[in-house]
Structure formats: C-alpha cells, structure tokens
C-alpha cells in the first residue's frame, strides 16, 4: 500500500492505493467525489469518465498510480463555484436526464469534445459519445444539450 498524491479539480489530495488500484475507487470512496459512477468496471459504459489532462478517461480501469502527475477533472470540477457550469446548465435547460446515472460520462466526454471542437455537428457529438451507454434513452436530449452549450460558447 502506498500513499499517492493526486491533483483533482485543481487541488492536491492524498489517497491510499496499491499498484493496480483503479482511480475510480480513490475518487469515490476516499475523496468522496460523487460525479464518477461505477457502471461496469470494464471501461465499456462510460459512467466513470473523468478528464485526465483534458482527455476523457475511464477511471474504473485506469490505475490511480498512472495519473499521479496529471490534472484530473471530475464532474464536480466543471461547476462554476456553487452553480452548475455552462455545460451542466445546458443539460439542465434541456432536462437532459432521466435517471441521470450515465450523465457524468456524457458531460465529461462532451466537455472534452467541446474543448477541442467548439462547434460540433450532430454527427460529431454522436461519434464522441458513441461509446457512452444510456439505458433510459436520453440520447436526443443529450445531443441538444451539447449543441446548446456550443451555441452559448459561440455567442458568449
């Protein structure tokens, strides 16, 4: 067991991990962050997605030790102070959730897309989110929310 320093949402935080301990459990269980969710532990569904140096990353299979020097951003890190951040607000405005369990992955992945492509087409969004699963069937609203956020950024 080793203590490790992670840089999460701009803060340095200490966690206890083993060599192969997945980042997800350090974030959820030790740092008590609620954004990333356990969905499959197989990097198939996307519910656990966080940004590592801006790249959407499946935290359920990423060893925490591998990202010790990286900037890690979780859903909480997208907030604007106490308020929802721009992309989160766009999801609220579109009521783009049913149960909401997958939405962490949708927002984190979409944030990475918008950071690289501020004006995505529907196909760009579908492709970026193609490996993120939603069972409630909120897909059409998620696409609208990402577009709404892109529009805001364009007009801002």
């Amino acid at each position, binding site marked *: 067991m080793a203590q490790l320093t992670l840089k999460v949402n701009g803060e340095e935080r200490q966690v206890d991990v083993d060599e192969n301990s997945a980042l997800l459990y350090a974030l959820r269980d030790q740092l008590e962050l609620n*954004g990333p969710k356990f969905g*499959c532990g197989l990097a198939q569904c996307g519910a656990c997605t966080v940004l590592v140096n801006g790249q959407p990353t499946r935290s359920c299979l990423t060893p925490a030790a591998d990202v010790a020097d990286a900037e890690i951003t979780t859903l909480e890190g997208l907030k604007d102070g106490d308020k929802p951040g721009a992309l989160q607000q766009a999801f609220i405005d579109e009521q783009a959730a049913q149960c909401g369990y997958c939405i962490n992955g949708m927002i984190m992945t979409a944030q990475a897309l918008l950071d690289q492509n501020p004006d995505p087409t529907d196909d760009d969004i579908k492709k970026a989110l193609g490996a993120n699963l939603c*069972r409630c069937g909120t897909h059409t609203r998620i696409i609208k929310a990402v577009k709404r956020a892109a529009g805001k950024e364009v007009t801002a």
Partner: protein
Amino acid sequence: MSLSLSRRRFAQGVGALVVSFTLNPSRIANAAPEQPIDPKWSADQQKELTPELDGWLRIDEDGTVTLFTGRVEIGNGVITALAQVVAEELSVPFESVSVISGDTDVVPNQGITSASTSIGVSAIVIRQAAATARHAIMEAAAEKFGATPEDVTVRDGMVATPDGSQELNLGEIFGGQEFAREVDMSAPTKPVEDYSIVGQSVARTDIPGKLTGAEDAFVENVRVDGMAFARILRGPSFGAKLVSWDESVKDMDGIVDVLPISHPGDERLARVEAYFTMPGDFIAVVAEREDQAIAAIERLRESVEWETSETLPVTHEELYDWITENGEPIEMVPNGDAGAVPPTFEELYADYESQMGDGVETVSRVYRGPYLYYAPIAPAFSLANVTEDRAVVWSSSQWPFGSRWMVAQALGFDSEEQVQIKGGSSSGLYGRRDDYDQEVDVEAAIISQAVGRPVRLQWSRQDEIMWSQYRPPQVLEMEALTGPEGEVRGLHTRVHTAVSGTHPSPGIFAMALQDTPYNLGPMPFEGFNTTGLLRTGYMRNVFSGYNLFALESLMDELAIEAGEDPAEYRLRHLEDDRAIDVINAATEAAGWSPSGGQGGSGMGISFALYTGEAGPSSAYMAYVAEVDVDEETGEVRVKKFTCAIDPGLVVNPDGVRNQVEGGVIQATSWTLKEQVQFDRSMVLNHDWGTYPILTFPEIPEIETIVVDRKDKPSKSIGEPVTVTVSAAIANAIYDATGARLRELPFTPERVKAALAER
C-alpha cells in the same frame, strides 16, 4: 421492540435543505404483517394503510409543505410530478413543496414504484391528502378571520378573506400543527380549469444535483462511518457448489473477512428463498477499500474450485420449441368489473368458431420474443448496517417496504420495524428491483451482520447480467378470422411463456390484448407456462410488449392481405375517439405515406391502449416508424419515430415527452439488438459486448405529440411508451422491403433470412 422517536430523524431526499423533526409513530400506521405484503394497492388501499393525513403532509411555520411518499425517483420524474399535484391542490407555489421519499421509517407504504402506477394510482391518494389539507386550512383560516370556510380563498400560499382585508400565509395559519384528521378520499378537489401548476413543464427538482455530483442525488452515493466494501464471487454455473478456495486471501492487505455462503443451504437465504436469485454458492469478500475487495476477488477467481451443474433443460436455441411443447395451462386473470363473471374460454371459443363460414378466411401467424434483460447502467448495490436487533439499509429498491420484509425475514428479526430501508433517488431500474427482487439488500444485510460493520455491497457488471431476473419469453400463436371485406371477425391467441419463480404473475399473460379497443369479434385466449428455466421478473411492460408486437404486426399483415392502408385498416376496427385521435395525430405529423413494400425505405404504424381504459396506465399511443433497410447487410436503420400519446390530463408535458423519447430508444434497442442467451449451465451474456444496447450513432430522431385530455384522469406512462415500438419497426421493415419479421430481435441475420423468404 418499541420504536424510539430519535430514529425518526431523517434527511430530506430531494434538494439541499436538511430538515429533522420527529413524528408520532402512531400516525404512521406501517403495520408489520407476518406474510409478504401484497404490493398491488389501489389508492383507497394506500389510504387505508396510512389513514392519518399527518402521515402524508406537513406544513411548517414558514409555509413550506412537505410530502411524504413511498414512491421513489428512478428516472421517470415522478417526485417532481407528485410535488406538482400537491402544490396545485394546496394552491401553494411549486417551490414551497419538498418531498421525502422511500424511507420506511417515515413515509407511507405506497406499494411498488412499478407497473406505471405513480401518477395513475399514487397521485390519487396524494391529491386527496392535499385536498383534505386544503379544507383543514380553510377551516382554520375562517376561524382566525371570523369568516366561513367557503368564503376563504387560497392562492399562491396565501389565505385571504374575499375582500382581501385579511391575509395570512399557510404557515401562519397552520405551521407546525398536526392535521389530526384522516385523508378524505372524497374531499372536493380543485376544478381542472383552475389548474396553473399541473399541466406545466416544471423542471425536475432532482436533475441539477444529478448533473453536478450532489451527494443526495443518488442513494448510491451514501457513505457511513466505519463502512467496509464487499464484492462477491459467484460460480460459473447456476447451482454451482463451492469445493475449495484459497484461504490465504484472508491475509491480503485490507481484507476484513472472506465469507463462503451456501445457496441453497444458508438458513438466512432459505427464509426468503422464493424470492432469491438462482441457486449457486458464492463467496463474499469484505475489505477496508473497494479496490482491495476487487483484488481479492481476482485472486480467488484464479484458485477457486467449483462443482458445476447443468440445471437448465435447454439452451436459448431450443427455447421456443421447448416452451411451446411443455407448458402447463395458465388460469387467466379476467378483465372486467369486480364480481362480474367473465365468459369462459370454451364459451368464447364457441363464439369464435361460430364466426366461421362462407367467405370467412383463417389467417395464422406465430410471433416470438426472447428473454430480455433490464440492463440498468448501475449494477445492483446495497449498503447495510446491521446491529444486534436493528438494520438500516440504503437501497435502490423500487419497493422499500418489500425490501424491509425480505431483510427482516432473512435476519430472523421478530418485526419488520426493526429494519429501516432508506431509499429515494437512484439509478434507472426498469423493474430490476421490483416486487421481492431485493436479493442484494439481503446479501448486504447478512454480510454486515457477519462482520459487525456497515457494508457497502457492489455487484459486478458480469453478475448483474448473469444473475439477474429477466422478462419471460413468449411465443404467440394467433389465428384471425377475416370476413369478405377483410375485417377481423375473431381472434384466437395462444401465449406460451416461461415464468420461473414468483413473478410476473402468469395470469396476466394476455395484458393489453384482452382489453384492446379494436373490434375484433370474439377473442378466446389460452396461456401456457413452462417453469424450470431462467428466473423471471416484472420488466418494464411485462407481457404486453410482445403481445402488442404480435397484435400490431398481425393487424398490419391483415391490412396488407386486404389491400388496405394499414392506418385506415386500424381505424376501421375502432370506435373509441381517443384511439382514432392518436392514430390521426401520428399519421398527420409523420406525413404518412407508406411505400408499399419496396425501395428499402419504409414507414410502419403501431397503436395501443395500454391495459384497458380503466387501468392506471391506460394511455393511448400511436407511433409511426421510418426505417432504411440495407438489403446487402440486413442492417435496419431506424431514422425517425413520430409518436402521438394521450395520457389523459397531463401533469408535466415535458416529462411525458422525456418518457416517450426514452421509451422509443429503449424499446428500439430491445427490438434490434437484445436477447438473453444461455446454455444449460449459465447465461452467456456477461458484459456490454455480449449484451449490446443501442448507442448514439443508432438512435432515431423522435417527434412527440402530446394530446392533453383535461377531461380524462391522468395516467402513468413509463411502461406504455415502450409497447408500440417493435411492431412499428417490423411494419416499417415490411413497407421498405416486403420482408416480414416475426421473431425478435431483428438482427441482420434474421432480416437477411426474411428478405430471402420474400
């Protein structure tokens, strides 16, 4: 044991505000029956169980209103909708209503959040509670004002005399007081034409927290002091017996305990065996950290020895033949008024046979649907803290009171009231935690009891798929009699299904068929059930999805045989205005123009009234699907769904649209991709690669027309919105290609086979 008042302290489930106070336990009449409680309560029965108004509503001195409900938020928006109903009936601003949900120590038992009954049933008793409260408030205000109750007005949380000379807010009149009266199920309610909150697209109160990582957004986020983490290793077959395992795993870092559990064999599980998972021993690993539990499971997996067995009589490939040949007759639950004697099968069949004669043709078709899996994104979880004579369980159960009974039984407690289930807002479930499907709570409880600590148990994704329960398969043999004009004169249906375990109740096998609004002449039904296969459950829409796939495919086939437009053909068999209106609304919005079986692009329609006009979820729906079919690859691309829905008086129009969109996408996924496969030992699907669901590149565009019928009771829609999808796609594939798909799912191989048969 007696209840201590301090245990009735709790945190609010929705929103950030934390309230804590005590309620008199005698006001919350959660009786502790010895036998499993019947989950199917009507609004009147829900009231009888908790007659006191103080069990439902509370008004604080600042005028805020708190609703207590046994219903939970699993993604349908019901908590917001129920708050709208309360705000409307009390005439208070929506923002002043908060909701406490799913905590068995403080909420009324309202049965299961299931079967599309939260709006259609539970909202009725909640509306009556609010109406009763409103009358109590008007009486109290009249006394304060020296007026008569009839003259007092209530608006926006303010109570006033007619001339406005005296005005107080709700809290000033009634804050902190007990109502000390019963819910009046016939209390006059507000006229619908005065509604200003019900019928509005109020934004859901739970969504902001879910999108920003709020702790109270999901019960899955709960952490308690001293909590350990548990994972489970199960065998490679149903009925697997544990032979040996590497006990050195106990010495790994952070391991609290390793618990081999026999199933069957364990006496705690034996007490709830009828409701438990398929048999099979398992090993629970409890660790200080979740990743340590996972590491121990992986090491166990390498060394453990199992004695496997083949407990299933057939594989999925032989399933339909097996259940067609081996079923036992099912006693059908009849429709109709209580007390009325429905016609017998023999009487109906004689009537059906009497329709045969000159110019009448018989058309026989067989439709098939496989076992389906709920496929929640969150695998089963539970957090239990069991002490000597008390258990608290944080659960995503759809039925906290059913879970309470299961846990109390398994732990051998004297009373259910020794168990507190704290439910509330959780991941989507679609029936996965319905009824007594609460095995994960039982497992967490017995593990917590064994280690003497709070334990958070997380099922793996693999176990979540392989050890679930499933929607039962169906083979529908349909035989229609058609007259000279192509009209249906009678319909004989045989349903073969495979319910194993206690549910779904086989007697409802004809749901949504037996009460169709179509005029189809005499409709004799026969049902046959085969047991001894996979454990089954109440998956969203239960039997009706396959029933309506069959009926709505058959209607299409009959229309085409009659040389008639499929939409017109349906209308010809309908007199119900609401049915006719949704079909016309859908075809008009879709620009209905079927291409007639060619060109690779087509349109299909499907219609349903869910579970008869009087049911709690009796929404009318007509959906038009548009598809492209690649005749080379057999791939079906669903381009668009145009959906018309009439759910009666609409509580939240955007909530209805959200449900329709979700229902279309989930059911499109069932239709094109999903099938549980198994050999004689085990379910073969084990991850999202082997149980694929619809992804972003595959989703259709969806247009929804909500027909608001303010003159009709509000109906629930979570299940109904899925039932008109499969047939609409099948009918559109026919329209595009002339190929008829009668077996779900419509994989490229099946489509190619159907194309070859043209």
